[in-house]
């Protein structure tokens, strides 16, 4: 705790002479792990505009509402009509609303990392006990958590609604759990890609455009090629093409291992063997994004 020092030499420490008014600090210094957690929570709050200007709260909050609204409507309809199933699978929800998720990543990844780069705050962080990897882990984890909140909240709405509508408990719980695993993976993947793109484009406007391009143009290209392959009857090609865009990667993983119905043309997802490749590619991209971020910050740290 801060202690008032008398205007005299502190015994045993001849170099420190304090004037009344300046209080030295003798309390705990909590070190790297604490600093990393503080950066994580500050960044996570920042991803929803908390602790920032009113203006920066608008978009993330709006996207959160847009993300949850369809779930609320589906639940209301299911309860009112006494339906015996939800109109949309837990695993399918994020795929359908991918545009909202992409918009969120595109707006929040640049604000999370490019601000520190643009205003040259990064060297201040590295003049403290934390290391490059601490900074990257805190930033990565905070954006992934923010995305998980965005994607898991509507699933929770669906699940609670399903239980209120007295749908089969075991069935719903299993679907909900599978959905959570899927959006967790999606959050890690999208956060990693968004941060890498944002970290190499410190100009915020460019960062937003570049993230949207990476997430949606790849999806557009992949689904067009898949449609062509499907028309030509080469369903094997459909599965392999799906490896080349983030959202189809998640689709592939969950239809192979998480009981999801594939959104691929023809509704045929990858087989178990192909699915293993999907999982490896997804994990590889997540690890690769982390590695690239660490490299990028090793450079700017000085």
């Amino acid at each position, binding site marked *: 705790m801060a202690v008032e020092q008398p205007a005299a030499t502190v015994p045993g420490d001849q*170099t420190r002479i304090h004037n009344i008014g300046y209080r030295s600090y003798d309390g705990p210094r909590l070190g790297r792990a604490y*600093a990393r957690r503080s950066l994580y929570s*500050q960044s996570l709050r920042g991803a929803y505009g908390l602790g920032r200007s009113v203006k920066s709260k608008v978009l993330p909050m709006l996207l959160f509402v847009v993300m949850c609204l369809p779930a609320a409507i589906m639940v209301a309809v299911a309860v009112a009509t006494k339906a015996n199933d939800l109109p949309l699978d837990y695993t399918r929800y994020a795929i359908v609303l991918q545009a909202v998720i992409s918009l969120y990543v595109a707006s929040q990844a640049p604000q999370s990392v490019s601000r520190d780069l643009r205003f040259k*705050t990064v060297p*201040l962080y590295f003049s403290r006990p934390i290391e490059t990897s601490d900074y990257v882990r805190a930033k990565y984890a905070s954006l992934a958590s923010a995305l998980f909140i965005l994607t898991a909240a509507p699933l929770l709405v669906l699940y609670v609604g399903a239980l209120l509508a007295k749908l089969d408990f075991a069935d719903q719980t299993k679907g909900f759990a599978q959905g959570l695993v899927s959006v967790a993976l999606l959050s890690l993947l999208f956060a990693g890609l968004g941060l890498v793109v944002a970290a190499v484009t410190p100009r915020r406007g460019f960062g937003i455009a570049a993230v949207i391009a990476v997430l949606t143009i790849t999806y557009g290209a992949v689904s067009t090629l898949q449609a062509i392959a499907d028309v030509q009857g080469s369903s094997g090609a459909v599965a392999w093409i799906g490896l080349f865009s983030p959202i189809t990667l998640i689709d592939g993983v969950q239809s192979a291992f998480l009981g999801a119905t594939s959104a691929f043309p023809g509704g045929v997802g990858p087989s178990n063997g192909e699915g293993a490749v999907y999982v490896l590619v997804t994990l590889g991209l997540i690890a690769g994004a982390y590695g690239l971020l660490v490299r990028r910050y090793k450079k700017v740290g000085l």
Partner: protein
Amino acid sequence: MIATESLSKRFPRVTALDRLSVDVGPGVTGLVGANGAGKSTLIKILLGLSPATEGRAEVLGLDVATKGPEIRERVGYMPEHDCLPPDVSATEFVVHMARMSGLPPTAARERTADTLRHVGLYEERYRPIGGYSTGMKQRVKLAQALVHDPQLVFLDEPTNGLDPVGRDEMLGLIRRIHTDFGISVLVTSHLLGELERTCDHVVVVDGGKLLRSSSTTDFTQTTTTLAIEVTDTDEHPDGTRAVRDALDARGVSVQDGSGLPGAGHVLLLTAAGEETYDLVRDVIADLGLGLVRMEQRRHHISEVFTDSDAERKEAVGHGG
């Protein structure tokens, strides 16, 4: 506080530090050198952020190569460039930086309030930093370096971009960091003049090499430049010339003070101590000339770098 031993840092094209060995004790120490002399590079090595190419360095008795995080917990750093986000207030920013140094939330808030008050930021601390003047921004940068009550702070060019008043206020604040807060300071500048007044000790580097390291009192004694102006007499129609020749004959090298007010009649020489004053007085008396003025000139750092006449004149021209 700081000890380096044959410390070198080579980049692919330049040698930023060249076998630098220096010891810095408690107090306020100035690190002076022209742009590109290697000052910022030295600070980054001392923070354990950039590995030295060869040699070793210790800060507070901790090896920079292996104890970076421990060093950075105990020292503060104020960078030379802008580093403040414009859209948050000074309070929010400094609290966050205090937590980054490991201070628990309550302590971080208390110390932020204290530190901002000590550097002279009051009501404005709740407003976004974007609207601050350069002087206020420098104070925020200083506050974030002091908020965790370090034992030592590195201040990289803290007076850069400030007007003369702001400069004096900042120098006064730097002095207080040691006298009132008990924190030792390593402060860099490319101007020797301003650090002379503030520091107990000055280290001069040039091209990554140590030029000299001495307490400021030695420094001023040995390198004061004297400006002399004398009258002419019938016997010596060019009195200035006569003094110059007489001093030359006694082995004291003299330059004429072109570029200064009264150019052509002003002589400059380096005073080595009391003897020089006596010598000059005697020479002028012997010649029967009148002494119009004899004064110490504030000197510019590049004087210490070079003995070449041309640059000395130029430097003195700026230093007056």
